[in-house]
Structures are given as structure tokens and as C-alpha cells.
């Protein structure tokens, strides 16, 4: 039990997916200009990441490893993720329109979000058990949301300041992200 707790903490803080592993940078910079979009994106990622983490783990263990065709992993995973995203989109549209209204526009973006694919690959590379893979996927997603929402908060404030023109927008955004990454570095050595 405590092992799983340590795993969760290290996935959320120490190996934070955005600030330590550099996965999912496109939505990190793209959807962090407004708090609203940042929250929407985070929710969509939590949803898709946990589901695809579970499904790709099952596909890998019971299909790819069983048939000894592990070299098709990249192709298989991206197809699973792409079709999962499509399916989730259709399902939400029909069954839970309220949730779809909130997450809808972010879902297509998630297919090319390397955070999702990255976590699925990490789960396999680190040889996690099923339970560990579920916990890790969820914790990475929470870490994604945490970093994205923190960053959006800071970025909204930075935009109010007078930033020199060449430094505006992405440039100052990256420097800000660097400073937030610095604060996350202090979690190193916690486990």
C-alpha cells in the first residue's frame, strides 16, 4: 500500500510529466493563456489518460507480448489512443452533453498529446503491474493538471505586466515555465 502511495507522489511531483519529463508541451503552452481552457484541458487529460493507460496496458500484455509482436507497439498504441479519443467524443456527445460542452473542443487535440502516449509507453517500459499502471496513469494526469493550472494562473498575471515586445507571449511563457520547473525540482530527493 505504501509503495503505491510513494509511486503516486513521485509521479505527481518528482517526475512531473510537464515540468520534469517534458511530455505534453503543446497543450502546456497552447491552453495555458486562460484559466478556463487550462481547467478544461486538465479534465480531458485525466479522463483520457487513465482510460488509455488501462487499455494500452491490457493490449500490450495480452496481445503484443502474447503474440510476440512487440515491435508493433508504437502503431498499436497510437491507433488505440486515436480510436479511444474518437469513441469518448461520440459517447460524451450522446450521453453526457453537459460534460461534452466543457471538454469537447479539447478531445481531438489529445490524440497528438504526447503526454498520453508517453505515459502509456512509460507504464510498459517500467514494467508496472496492472494496479501500478492504473495508479501511475492517474497520478501523472493529476500532475499534468496541477502544473498546467498553476502555470495558467501565473501566466494570466504575467500578461498584465509590461513585457518587452520581443519577449512577449511564448518567450516569456517558457521562461516562466522554467521558474515553475525550478520549484518542482525541490521535490527531488523526497522519495
Amino acid at each position, binding site marked *: 500500500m505504501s509503495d503505491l502511495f510513494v509511486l503516486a507522489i513521485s509521479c505527481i511531483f518528482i*517526475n512531473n510529466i510537464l515540468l*520534469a*519529463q517534458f511530455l505534453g508541451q503543446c497543450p502546456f503552452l497552447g491552453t495555458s493563456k486562460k484559466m478556463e481552457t487550462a481547467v478544461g484541458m486538465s479534465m480531458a487529460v485525466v479522463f483520457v489518460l487513465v482510460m488509455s493507460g488501462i487499455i494500452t496496458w491490457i493490449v500490450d500484455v495480452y496481445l503484443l507480448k502474447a503474440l510476440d509482436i512487440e*515491435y508493433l507497439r508504437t502503431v498499436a498504441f497510437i491507433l488505440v489512443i486515436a480510436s479511444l479519443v474518437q469513441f469518448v467524443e461520440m459517447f460524451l456527445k450522446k450521453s453526457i452533453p453537459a460534460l461534452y460542452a466543457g471538454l469537447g473542443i479539447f478531445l481531438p487535440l489529445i490524440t497528438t498529446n504526447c503526454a498520453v502516449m508517453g505515459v502509456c509507453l*512509460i507504464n510498459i*517500459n517500467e*514494467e508496472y503491474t496492472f494496479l501500478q499502471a492504473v495508479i501511475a496513469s492517474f497520478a501523472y494526469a493529476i500532475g499534468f493538471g496541477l502544473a498546467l493550472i498553476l502555470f495558467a494562473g501565473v501566466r494570466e498575471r504575467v500578461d498584465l505586466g509590461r513585457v518587452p515586445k520581443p519577449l512577449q507571449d511564448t518567450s516569456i511563457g517558457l521562461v516562466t515555465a522554467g521558474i515553475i520547473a525550478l520549484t518542482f525540482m525541490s521535490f527531488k530527493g523526497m522519495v
Partner: protein
Amino acid sequence: MREMISMIVVLTVLTVISGGLLAAVKSGTEEQIEIQVLKFQKAPAIESIFPDVTNDPIADRFTIKTEEMKLQVFPTKLADGSKAVAFETKGTGFGGPVGLMVAVNINSDKVIDVRMTAHAETPGIGTKPKEDLFFVSQFTGLSIMDTDFNLKGSGGVIDAVSGATVTSNALCTAAVKAKEVYQKLKPEIIKQMK
């Protein structure tokens, strides 16, 4: 309807071609990849365990297959004439699997030395603790038949490297696994070494 069929046909054909192409590339590179893995992951560990042996343990390697596992064994002969083998087992830390190359003297059933082997790292993730020579030297001379290779905290005889408890634990797990493997496969290893 026609559109639907053409969609399905194109996607299926594309996936089949992709699968076939990849299978061809895979079988073409398989041998080369195995050589590279041996050269960069296992060779450094084996060379540092057996610094001056007369044969090439990597060229002389053989594989033992049982129902549950496949084990690559690297045999050699020591200076005093006794036979020795090295093989790799894995333990899991939070930073992913850690490989441990274990060398055993077959005549005396004692551990000669152990080494950590290289693994793919994720850039950005904190680097794995460097090999600690004191840590690996603790294994030397212990009997692989009846030593408890766990950390002292869990009832064993090994001291953890401070600041790298998780990795130490993973390495100890690998050593415990090596003990099980060796005890089970020893007759088979001796048979194949002739």
C-alpha cells in the same frame, strides 16, 4: 455505402502493408540488435567482473529455455581452473527495472561479483544512482545457495546505499531472483557447459 467500403478497404490495406513492412524490417535487424544489446548493455558488466579470462564469455554464451523463462548464460573458466558463469536478472525499483549481472563460481557455489547493467533512461527523469563499489562488493564471496540477499532492514545481510534505498532494494530483489534461478537451473547449466 460505397464511401464506407472504400474507407475500410484503404485503412485495412494500409495497416496490413505497414504490418508486413515492419515484420520484414524487424527480421532484418533482429540479429544486429541482439549484438548491439550484448555489446553495450552486457559486455561492460561482464568484462569488469571477469577482467582476465582466457575465453570470450560473450561469444561462448548459450541460452537455457524453460517453460517460464529464457536465460542467457555467459560461461568462463577462472584462473584456478574452476568453472564460472554470469547471468542477468532484473529487479523493479520506482525508476523502472534495474538489471544485475551476477557471476557465480560453479565449483564452490559462491558469488564472484555483481554489477549493475545499463538500461534505457528517460531524458529528464533524475539520473539513476551511480554504481557504488562498496555496495556491489558486499555480495562477493557469499554463498548463492543459502544467503538471504535482502537488505538488512528486511532480514537480509546487505547494507543499502544511503540516498538510493529504492535502487538498492531493486538490486537485492534481483539478487534473490538470481539465487532462485541458479538453484533451479544449475544442473542444466553444468550440462550445457560441457
